[in-house]
């Protein structure tokens, strides 16, 4: 469904990605792991078209999308959930969802239907449609961010740090929603600091270090690779 072939990216004179390749098949969850600053988010941003690629090719559902505008990419059904707080804090929940459906253009009826369907999956948000997003809790904001990304009906969802700063209970709720979408045929790439969580839901995994892919294979196999994972634990472990 998605092939990333030998993609390199530079920020000005500094190269940050070196010939990164990865593949996502229809209906699977793939984890993209790595240390802080390994370039995981950069990979997602390059796929979404917000960052230009210096070399390599990105193919989505048989079509070369390298260098396409973010809008074209969103329209083709490839959506990224922004990292950190991905909501528009000064807008209401409803407005956030409407911006999520921006690509429907002037087709207001379709946007309304799409929002309606998303609200079926996120009943909590329906109760808060007129609340300002910035006044909600962190977990609710992340839920809104996820819901917003579902409005354009993605076939492939790139999730950047779903669990960041959230309580485990809330993360579990969000993962349930994510799994439900997967059973309906949506493919997912999760970028995570939280290794256990990612390997728990993913079938396959990639591991990145300093802008390069170091591991590519079944999630179970990566779990055994202490040599790679230790660096992540060292960089994220909370001091006890």
């Amino acid at each position, binding site marked *: 469904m998605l092939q990333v072939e030998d993609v390199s990216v530079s920020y000005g004179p500094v190269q940050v990605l070196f010939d990164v390749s990865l593949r996502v098949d229809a209906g699977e969850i793939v984890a993209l792991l790595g240390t802080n600053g390994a370039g995981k988010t950069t990979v997602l941003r390059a796929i979404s078209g*917000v960052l230009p690629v210096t070399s390599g090719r990105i193919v989505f559902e048989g079509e070369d999308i390298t260098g396409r505008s973010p809008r074209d990419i969103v329209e083709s059904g490839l959506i990224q959930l922004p990292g950190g707080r991905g909501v528009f804090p000064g807008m209401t929940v409803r407005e956030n969802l409407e911006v999520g459906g921006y690509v429907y253009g002037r087709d207001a009826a379709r946007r309304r239907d799409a929002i309606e369907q998303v609200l079926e999956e996120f009943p909590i948000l329906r109760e808060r449609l007129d609340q300002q997003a910035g006044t909600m809790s962190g977990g609710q904001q992340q839920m809104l961010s996820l819901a917003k990304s579902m409005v354009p009906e993605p076939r492939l969802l790139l999730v950047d740090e779903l669990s960041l700063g959230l309580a485990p209970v809330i993360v579990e709720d969000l993962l349930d929603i994510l799994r439900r979408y997967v059973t309906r045929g949506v493919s997912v790439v999760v970028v995570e600091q939280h290794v256990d969580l990612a390997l728990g839901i993913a079938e396959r995994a990639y591991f990145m270090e300093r802008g390069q892919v170091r591991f590519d294979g079944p999630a179970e196999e990566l779990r055994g690779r202490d040599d790679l994972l230790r660096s992540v634990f060292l960089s994220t472990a909370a001091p006890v």
Partner: protein
Amino acid sequence: MSVFLQVAVIGLAKSGIIAMLAIGIVLIYRTTGVVNLAHWAMGLLGVVVYVLVSQSTPLPNALVAVVGIAAAVGAGLVSQRLVFSRLRRGDGVTMILIALGVGAFLAAVAQMLLRGQRGEILVEPTLPTGQLVLAGTVTTYAELITIAVAIGTAAVLLPWLQRSRTGRALRAVAQNREAAELAGIDATRYAELAWMIGSGLAGAALLLLIPHSAGERGGVLSVVHLVPLGSLLIPAFGAALVGGMISLNAALAGSLIFGLVQEVLILAPAPIADERDILAYVVITVLLLLRTERFFATNAELEALRA
């Protein structure tokens, strides 16, 4: 009573002009993070084009004014494309210096276009001339039209920003650029749109100002009066600061303070009436020191503006 009304109408007209400038300043700042100290110069270019076209063609003045506004829109678009889009966000001092440079550049271009007309230039009236008596008060058409245009602009623009898809996208870019782009919004295009709207409003504001500076029949206008860096931009920024450069509604309220209230204070007892300008400067300083932005935006939004 009729004196009060008369002063109030003048003050409202002034408020209207300030409001149109302030809306543009806030819109550009929120969408692109640029504090546009060149705002007056965008409008100035519009006025100069108006002057030149109205001198050389027999077109009706209202139509020429539209051409002038279009020129201001173009000046804003070009400035954003060539200069401001290349700026790194967050480098505040460089950004302001560049805005000053763009202002100086456009002012020089305006003077170039007006060659041979040093000092004072002949300007056709932008608005219908004449006076009328309303409720025992003498007012001019120019004042009433200025008020009407300003109210009309606010009445159309604010709900449009609030409800339309384009308005929502503009706000989305302002609040979280990355998330907006990931939703398929072309942030570059919307930044340009904000510059175009803001600059167009500046052009309209300065064109509305002509009858008040040059007399209602048009007539001579000194070039110096077309450079309202201090005389108009300061109250416009003051009005914008009432809303912390964030809230358009509060900026509108602010423009009432720096237009209507300041004008009405003419009727106050001597020391206040004489020192109205000083009072305005004091108010602006206090607004600055209060850091009014805190009242209108969450920390997340303010970070987004500076990041």
